[in-house]
Each structure stands twice: as structure tokens, then as C-alpha cells.
């Protein structure tokens, strides 16, 4: 990078900030100087316009357009071919199956381990430190996490010393080293491990906060009734945090459905590891199969939908109970 490059970049940021400040300044100026007649209305428009326009142009219109593109051939004729492809080609079917496996395993394990950990360390000495350890992967990018785990899964052929931790353990117990990321179906599971590793901290933090919301009196009352730790866990703690459990499971499920970076960085979807989010990118932006990519995006949206609807229903029922 030369000094001129750096100056150019700094100039870009400064100009970007200046233009943005000018836009906001002008907007506020006109809002305050709006004509007397209908001033309230103009003020509302001024405050809402930037966000609404951006979201309409950048999200609403594209989402509609993608839905249409999914039902068109590259020449613009209407067709179901993209969906036929997605549900009949062996590779595409495998992608769908993998996605289902991901969305079943990641939320379950991340939430279970996160909850167990949250209960174990609750009010223990050094709780903050313990939390930070498990929570740290959230701040790490999926790409960074992928490099970290690729190193764990690294394979060395023959009698050479293994530098990947997993193979070193296998060899230490007298096994043969495995090419983890190339071996189907274990490779998909190992990619899932990375996602669980990232998401568990999130589950732990949210659930831990919920556990702290349970009244100490309740736990003491259960204690006086002669319950053991497990009974208190299932009868007091779990019902007490049900709402947060639903939120955590939902959020992780949705994040898992959309995860793209892990597969992209670790295997690029080769060796039967692809999932819908990754395949969407590959089809639309690598293979220029816009229709197929759009169909996969639509499938992804349809997969997210029931999870969200379920979540909303649970929350609504809870409100009715209260």
C-alpha cells in the first residue's frame, strides 16, 4: 500500500462522512423550516424518509424481484425449472438435506451446552471470566473461526507428525489419521461443530440472564420441598426461562440457516458439504445461474418463515397468560 493509496482511502472516509453529515443537516434544516401548513406531516416524512427509502429500495423491492427471478429462465420466460432442479438434482437435494441437518443439530447442541454451562457457573466464583471464555467466539468472524478449526482438522499423510489436534489425538490412541474435511459425511458434522462453537456463547449469555431473573425464593421453596438439583432444574429453572429458550433456539436456527462463511471458507461446498445459503451464492454469483440462486434464496426464506411464525405464536400465548 502506497501513501497515495492510504491518502485516497482516508479522503474517501472523510468525504463520505462530510456528505452524510451534509445530507442529515439539510434534512433537519428543511424539517424545521417546513411550511406552516402540514408542518407535522413534513416533519414525519423528513425523519422517516431516509430509512424507509433505503429499506424499500434495498430490501423490499429486491425481495420481490428475487421471488420473481426464481420463477424465470435467464431469458425471462416463466418456468418452474429452477425449483425442479433444486428438488431433483442429487447435488441439490444433498444441499437441502445438509441444511436440515445443520438446523437440527446446531440450535439443539448450542442451546443444550449453553444452558448447562450457564447453570453450572451460575453465581460461582469467577463467573464473569467463565462467561467471557465461552462468549469470545461470538466476536470472532466466521472466517476466523474457520481458519481456527481448519487448523484443528488439518491432516498430514503417512507417518509424518500430525499438526492438527484432532488427528494427533486419533494417532495417539493408535488410529489412522483421517482427511476430516474430505470425508463424507463426517465433514458436514465437523463444520457443524464450528457453528456450535460460535453460537453456544450466545445461548449461554441470554439463558444466564434469564436464570438470574428467576426469584431466589422459588428455588429456595423447591429446596425446602426436598427436591434434588435435577428436579429443581426441570421444574423451576426450565419453566422459568421458557421464553428465553424459545428466543435462543429461534435465533440460532435462523442464523444457522443463513450461515455461509463457514462452508465457503472451509470446503467451499465441496465433498458434499454444501448448504442452501452457500449454494445460493455459488449458483447466483459464481455460476451466473441467477434463476437457481433466486430459487434457493426463496427456499431459504420459506425455511425461515415457520420458525419465525412459531416464535411469534409462543410469545403471543405467553402474553395472554400474563
Amino acid at each position, binding site marked *: *500500500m502506497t501513501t497515495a*493509496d492510504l491518502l485516497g*482511502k482516508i479522503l*474517501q472516509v472523510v*468525504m463520505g462522512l462530510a456528505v*452524510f453529515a451534509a445530507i442529515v443537516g439539510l434534512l*433537519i434544516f428543511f*424539517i424545521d423550516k417546513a411550511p406552516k401548513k402540514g408542518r*407535522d406531516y413534513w*416533519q*414525519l416524512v423528513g*425523519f*422517516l424518509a431516509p*430509512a*424507509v427509502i433505503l*429499506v424499500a*429500495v434495498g*430490501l423490499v*423491492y*429486491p*425481495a420481490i*424481484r428475487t421471488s420473481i427471478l426464481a420463477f424465470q429462465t435467464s431469458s425471462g420466460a416463466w418456468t418452474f425449472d429452477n425449483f425442479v432442479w433444486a428438488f431433483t438434482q442429487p447435488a441439490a437435494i444433498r444441499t437441502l438435506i445438509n441444511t436440515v441437518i445443520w438446523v437440527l443439530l446446531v440450535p439443539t447442541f448450542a442451546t443444550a451446552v449453553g444452558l448447562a454451562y450457564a447453570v453450572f*457457573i*451460575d*453465581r460461582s466464583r469467577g463467573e464473569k471470566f467463565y462467561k467471557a*471464555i465461552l*462468549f469470545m467466539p461470538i466476536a470472532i*468472524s466466521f*472466517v*476466523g473461526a*474457520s*481458519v481456527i478449526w*481448519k*487448523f*484443528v482438522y488439518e491432516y498430514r499423510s503417512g507417518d509424518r*507428525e500430525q*499438526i492438527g*489436534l484432532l488427528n494427533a489425538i486419533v494417532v495417539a490412541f493408535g488410529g489412522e489419521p483421517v482427511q476430516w474435511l474430505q470425508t463424507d459425511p463426517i465433514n458436514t458434522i465437523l463444520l457443524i461443530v464450528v457453528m456450535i462453537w460460535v453460537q453456544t456463547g*450466545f445461548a449461554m*449469555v441470554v439463558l444466564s*440472564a*434469564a436464570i*438470574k*431473573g428467576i426469584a431466589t425464593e422459588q*428455588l429456595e421453596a423447591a*429446596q425446602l420441598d426436598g427436591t434434588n*438439583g435435577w428436579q*429443581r432444574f426441570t421444574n423451576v429453572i426450565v419453566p422459568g426461562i421458557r421464553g428465553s429458550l424459545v*428466543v435462543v433456539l429461534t435465533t440460532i436456527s*435462523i442464523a444457522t440457516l*443463513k450461515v*455461509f462463511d463457514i462452508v465457503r471458507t472451509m470446503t467451499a461446498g465441496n465433498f458434499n458439504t454444501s448448504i442452501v445459503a452457500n449454494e445460493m451464492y455459488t449458483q*447466483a*454469483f459464481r455460476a451466473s445461474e441467477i434463476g437457481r440462486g433466486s430459487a434457493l*434464496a*426463496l427456499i*431459504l426464506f420459506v425455511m*425461515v418463515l415457520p420458525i*419465525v411464525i412459531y416464535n411469534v405464536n409462543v410469545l403471543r400465548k*405467553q402474553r395472554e397468560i400474563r
Partner: protein
Amino acid sequence: MSIAPPDLPVGKNRGALDATADAEASGYVEPKTIRVKKRLTSRTATVASLIIALLWTIPTFGLFISSFRPAELIRTTGWWTIFTNPGFTLENYQDVLLSTSSSSPQLGSYIVNSIAIALLATIIPLVFASMAAYAFAWMRFKGVGVLFVIIFALQIIPLQMALVPLLQIFSTVLRPMQAWLHDIVPIIPEQNYLPLWIAHTIFGLPLAIFLLHNFISEIPADVIEAARVDGATHGQIFFRIVLPLSVPAIASFAIFQFIWVWNDLLVALIFSGGTQDVAPLTQRLAELTGTRGQDWQLLTAAAFISIIIPLIVFFSLQRYFVRGLLAGSTKG
């Protein structure tokens, strides 16, 4: 409409977290809590939590150790043999950061790109979102409620649904504009950050509006009304009262958005073009993993550089970050 944002268990969690954080900060724990604590924690639980903590740390720790080992040692020995095969070097970092030879990763420019992208991609959505949140919370108009629910509901649209058409819009509208910018100010490259700033702003807005609205709508009505009676305009109320009062919410979302943008790969891959002029660190790292997958001395150092900034942000502002995460646990 069935979606009812204010009833998400956000407030409750936030309150609980604050309460514990405060208790921890003051060092005061109820005696009753201690009694219960003793009964809840057992030796098995301690051992189990230790094992989990270890499992979660070792992978990162291994990468960290390796990034300081000479290339030859990384290639031939496991990092856990560091004591039997000692070796410490800063060469890997020098190579990925400072070397100008075309074969080295030259991370310097990508770091600058990441900072430039994350900076504005955090500020712009925050300002626009807080303006919108203020309007939704304090300007009464027919249809505003429905509009808010629509924007809230947009969170469930996966990024993937927007990418193809957005790229088409960018190439027909934004590209010519960038070329025009380049013509006027030649030092600005034709490939610039504008598409990334806009894309991240758009994708960050629905969640930002929702979170800030939750906060801004809880400002006491008396405060706003008093200002109105004194003749303050909406602009003045927004800048003098609402923004200063919303600092905690803004801070937590800012950290959240910053880390999210910093860690993003998908948006970067599609809108950056992948050159040193624009592409962020994550994109370069992903590229290295593909093309230089066996050069572990480069990968380990590069990966560590890419995670160090979000980790610093995370550890120094952990409390705000956690709060943003708890409040944002519905992000779709």
C-alpha cells in the same frame, strides 16, 4: 397484525443482566443468594464447566501459539509440542503485515479497508435508524404503526433474498456515479466503499430501528412534551434530548453493528470487487484459506490479526455488547 415487538422478552433480560452486573460491580451479593448458590453448585458441575471452558479455548489458543512459531516448525510439529520444539518468531506477522513482495498477503491495505467500511457502515444506519425510531415513537400519524410493524417484520428476510437485485441496482445506478466521482476527484478509486456502506446500512436498518425504538419510546412523555411546549422543534428535540438520552442503546447497537460489519464476508464478496482498494480483511483471509491453504504460518498470523480488533472491542465494551446482543436476540 400478530407481530408484537414490545412483548419480546428483551426488557426483562436487560433488567436482569443490569441487576447482576450492578451487584457484581458493587461486590454486594445477598446472603440468601450465597446460601442457594452453595446448594446449586456441585463438584460435577465445576468439572463439567471446566471441561467446556477448555474445549472452547483450546482451538483459538492453538492458533495463537502457532502464529508465533517459525514456518518450518508449524509445518512439521504440533503446536502443543512448543516446549519440546521451542521456537518463537515475529516473522509471520512481519510477513503478512509489512512485506511488500507480491507473494505476501499484504494485509495492511485490507485492514484500512475494514476500518473504513466498518466506521461508516456503523454511523450511517445508526443516525438514520434513530431518526426513524424517534418518528415512530413520538410522531402520531395514521399508518405509522403499520409501517413500523412492516419494518420490524423485514428482519426475517434473509440477506440472500436481496443480493441479486441489489447488485443489479448498484451496477446500473451506483457504478456510473462512482465513475463520475473518480473523474472529479482522481485520487478516489473507481472501485470505492460506497456500495458496501449502502448495503450494510440497508441490512442493518430494520434491527437498528426496532432496538432504538424500544429504547426511545420509553423516554418519559413529560420530557418531550415540556420541550414541545417551550417551542422546541422536532429537530431540536431529537438532537438535544433524544440522542443524548439514548446513548446506552446507541452504544450497544454501535458495537454490535461494528463487529457484525467487521466480520462480514457475504456482503463484501458480492459488493467489494475483491481488490486491495476496497476488500476487507475477512475477504482476504478467506481468499488466503483457499489459495494458500497450506501456508499455515501466513494463515495463523493473518487470522489472528483479523480477530484481534473485534476481540478488543468486545473485551473493553463487553457489558454494552452483551446488552445489545440480549436486546438483539431476535435478529433474523
